[in-house]
């Protein structure tokens, strides 16, 4: 009897284990719907378009909100096209007044903030409200820098909002001369000075997405969790920090898959769906997976459609000798996509520092002393490019000959010679220098030690001050750091973002953290800032880059190269570094996805 009891207990335990997970099979939720399974490496901070700057928030929100303009999905070089604008703007002769026709028949998604819960039609007033809201100082939007000193009367409106106690009390009927809805379908923007990149930087950015006033009034501080947009998807579920589910927006105006692209797109199958109505997927699921191992295992098991390559799994995915997929990846029908991120990283010099500021040979010596290629090999598995200039190769005006100038040459012998010169300028041995490093994690420490090694190899000493992010930012913006590790990623393919980092008028807390000041450069910047794209402007951009590089305000180290993997069933994937509204183009071949289990079984047998 006792034996029977133990047996029964054992059976019950097994049953419990089975019910709670053991012996499970793959979930079958996708059978009747097309679902995209994606991951986010960190949680989306907010889905409030007006105060959003985190990449992962934008990866989600870019499919909920829409902007007036955006970049074409397939065409390269990137080409701006209207989205919520009915057409391109009419621009006055002085390039200051933009009259933008708004597309008619666009509706917000259904939401309880509207009467009867039915989304109303989009009007030009919604754009005015969205931009004024960013200017509201009480809203304290991170996106204010986009619009600061740009639109006539908007800075005065910001000043006006300082008198209010809180964000919600501000009266938005206050008239801004340069930002008006002439009627329901016409938006007028008058600029303080010409702004050739306005369409891309401001009107193509998620920040300027139209937001219904009703939603802000209804949700108040909850608006960050209750996005109300006009995009192809709407938020269905958001378990903060773990799971986001988007579903089709029934009110979406509809669009067709593009029928034009690059020459290679047809061969790559990217035009197979040309002219078909989008979005293809019924649902999009984002899972927040912060650790590399589960993210990688889920992808390898086919539970995620795409993935980056974690550092520890690089050799499993890529044959390093030829930088292509390994046989195992090919057997799984996994595809590799590589693209240059529009990013540049550097070790910056504070040119107000008495040791570094007036000692160009010293700055040159440091630049010559750092082996950038070794950094790329050691820290990024070769996924990077040496930064020969500060403009990323992803930019339209990138100078393909910039490497010939040798600004980022690794030459320790020359560095030693330059150091002697630097000591003469300084009037004695160079004292130990201090680098402000954002972060106290393993990577930060390894990077700090890497730099220290190269400094010591040429006879210099570098102390590294590892800091938490707020302290680093405060010290950086107050000009207290002697050297600092930093980087930037461009939001548009126009290099103006990079060039403005070296203007005297943008000294920190603006973008110029180097305190680089060159009157000739400033004059040129004023000139190019109001120039529309042209060969002349491209030449000036390149000239300005060389001017800065020749003054060595930083050791420009790397441009990041991204590797993305997708399963064969994930169709229409083309990396797009400047748009987040890409999921409507993506499609899943359900049959192919279903067959992956057989592929896994086959691989297991082998």
């Amino acid at each position, binding site marked *: 009897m006792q034996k029977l009891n133990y047996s029964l207990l054992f059976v019950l335990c097994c049953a419990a284990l089975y019910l709670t997970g053991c012996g499970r099979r793959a979930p079958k939720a996708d059978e009747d719907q097309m679902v995209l399974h994606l991951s986010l490496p960190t949680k989306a901070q907010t889905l409030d378009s007006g105060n959003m700057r985190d990449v992962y928030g934008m990866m989600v929100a870019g499919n909920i909100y829409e902007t007036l303009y955006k970049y074409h999905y397939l065409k390269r070089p990137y080409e701006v096209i209207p989205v919520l604008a009915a057409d391109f703007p009419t621009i006055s002769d002085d390039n200051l007044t933009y009259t933008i026709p708004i597309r008619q028949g666009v509706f917000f998604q259904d939401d309880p903030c509207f009467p009867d819960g039915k989304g109303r039609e989009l009007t030009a007033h919604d754009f005015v409200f969205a931009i004024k809201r960013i200017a509201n100082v009480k809203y304290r939007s991170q996106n204010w820098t986009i619009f600061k000193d740009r639109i006539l009367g908007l800075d005065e409106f910001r000043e006006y909002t300082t008198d209010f106690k809180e964000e919600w009390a501000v009266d938005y009927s206050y008239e801004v001369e340069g930002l008006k809805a002439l009627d329901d379908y016409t938006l007028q923007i008058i600029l303080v000075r010409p702004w050739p990149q306005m369409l891309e930087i401001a009107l193509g950015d998620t920040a300027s997405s139209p937001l219904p006033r009703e939603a802000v009034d209804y949700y108040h501080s909850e608006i*960050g969790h209750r996005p109300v947009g006009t995009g192809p998807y709407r938020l269905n579920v958001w378990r903060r920090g773990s799971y986001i589910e988007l579903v089709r927006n029934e009110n979406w105006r509809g669009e067709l898959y593009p029928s034009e692209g690059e020459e290679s797109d047809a061969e790559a199958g990217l035009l197979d769906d040309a002219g078909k109505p989008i979005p293809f997927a019924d649902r999009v699921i984002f899972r927040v997976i912060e650790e590399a191992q589960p993210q990688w295992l889920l992808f390898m098991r086919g*539970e995620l459609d795409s993935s980056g390559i974690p550092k520890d799994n690089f050799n499993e995915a890529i044959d390093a000798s030829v930088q292509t997929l390994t046989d195992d990846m090919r057997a799984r029908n996994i595809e590799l996509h590589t693209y240059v991120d529009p990013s540049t990283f550097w070790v910056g010099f504070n040119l107000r520092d008495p040791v570094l500021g007036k000692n160009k040979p010293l700055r040159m010596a440091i630049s010559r002393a750092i082996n950038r290629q070794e950094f790329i090999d050691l820290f990024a598995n070769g996924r990077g490019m040496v930064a020969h200039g500060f403009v990323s190769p992803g930019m339209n005006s990138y100078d393909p000959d910039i490497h010939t100038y040798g600004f980022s040459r690794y030459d320790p012998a020359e560095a030693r010679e330059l150091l002697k010169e630097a000591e003469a300028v300084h009037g004695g041995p160079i004292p130990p220098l201090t680098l402000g490093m954002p972060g106290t994690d393993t990577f930060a420490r390894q990077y700090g030690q890497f730099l220290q090694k190269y400094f010591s190899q040429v006879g210099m000493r570098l102390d590294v001050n590892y800091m938490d992010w707020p302290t680093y930012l405060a010290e950086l913006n107050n000009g207290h750091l002697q050297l600092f590790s930093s980087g930037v990623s461009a939001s548009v393919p126009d290099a103006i973002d990079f060039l403005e980092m070296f203007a005297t008028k943008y000294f920190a807390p603006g973008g110029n953290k180097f305190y680089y000041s060159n009157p000739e450069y400033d004059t040129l910047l004023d000139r190019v800032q109001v120039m529309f794209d042209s060969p002349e402007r491209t030449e000036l951009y390149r000239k300005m880059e060389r001017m800065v590089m020749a003054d060595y305000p930083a050791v420009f180290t790397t441009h990041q190269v991204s590797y993305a993997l997708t399963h064969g069933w994930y169709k229409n994937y083309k990396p797009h570094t400047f748009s987040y509204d890409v999921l409507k183009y993506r499609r899943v071949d359900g049959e192919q996805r279903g067959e992956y289990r057989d592929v896994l079984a086959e691989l297991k047998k082998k």
Partner: protein
Amino acid sequence: MTAFIIRRLLYTVPIVVGVLLVTFVLFTLVGGDISYQIAGRDADAETIAEIRREYGFDKPRFIGEAGERLNSQFFDHFKNALTFDFGYDLNREKITERIWRGVGPSLALTVPMFIGTLVISISLSLFVAFVRGSIWDVTLVVICVAGMSIPYLSFIIFGQYFFAYQLDWFPIFFVPDQSIWVSVALPVLIGIAAGLGNSLRFYRTVMLDEMRCDYVRTAFAKGLSTRTVLFKHVLKNAMIPILTNVVLSIPYLILGSLLLERFFGIPGLGDMMIQAINARDFFVLNAMTFMMSLLIVVFTLLTDICYAWVDPRVSLE
């Protein structure tokens, strides 16, 4: 008993004040001005000033100005903690709501893990104490030491890779549209396996101490069965260290498991803590530290009360 409880509750006052002071100094003075982080990289002075005003960073640190001495950052910190109004996190979400939301998943993971570890380790410890010196005892001790020597992370990485990925017995990661028990099954088993070595060794020592006592020999001499001696006498007398271990573990159960939650995507408080650390969200960290200290104080008191309950020799007067 009542006097004891009142006295112990009064002891908690300086402890709580001390915790509040330490967290304030750590997060406010040492942690840097978080306004810059909230404002973003190139924010202008007005935005930073507005953030400082909203979060009260523009107030004096410890003592307010004449006429409003209590209008300072420290008193705000004090008041918010005592009223359990921790305000908003960096993403403008109510911290109290986040904590409530995270408690359930954390407990779903840690309670079965804790009970499983406890039941298995106490049962095994009774067994090995009884057969001490035998091959069973030596083998289990060796396994325990080996288990204790392997880092916790290795258990997680191996367990996730082998049982979830290779054998496909469990989900690799949290499955939102299924019962939470499906997602916590593997982490619970990993947690039990990883914690067993330490726990078993502890309880084995406790049981061995008891087994050497005279009353055990007397019980056997009187002809009581092994089961009666072990479960009725030895286990009951070993309750004090077991209770200490159990009750003092409860606050940590509520806090969740940092690594397991992160690797398996369990949306509990442990995961929330790591996210807060990574995002440098001092508001959340501050709230969690305070809550944790409060729980420890309360459960320490509870442990003392339980002593009197299980052991008549203990007097709380």
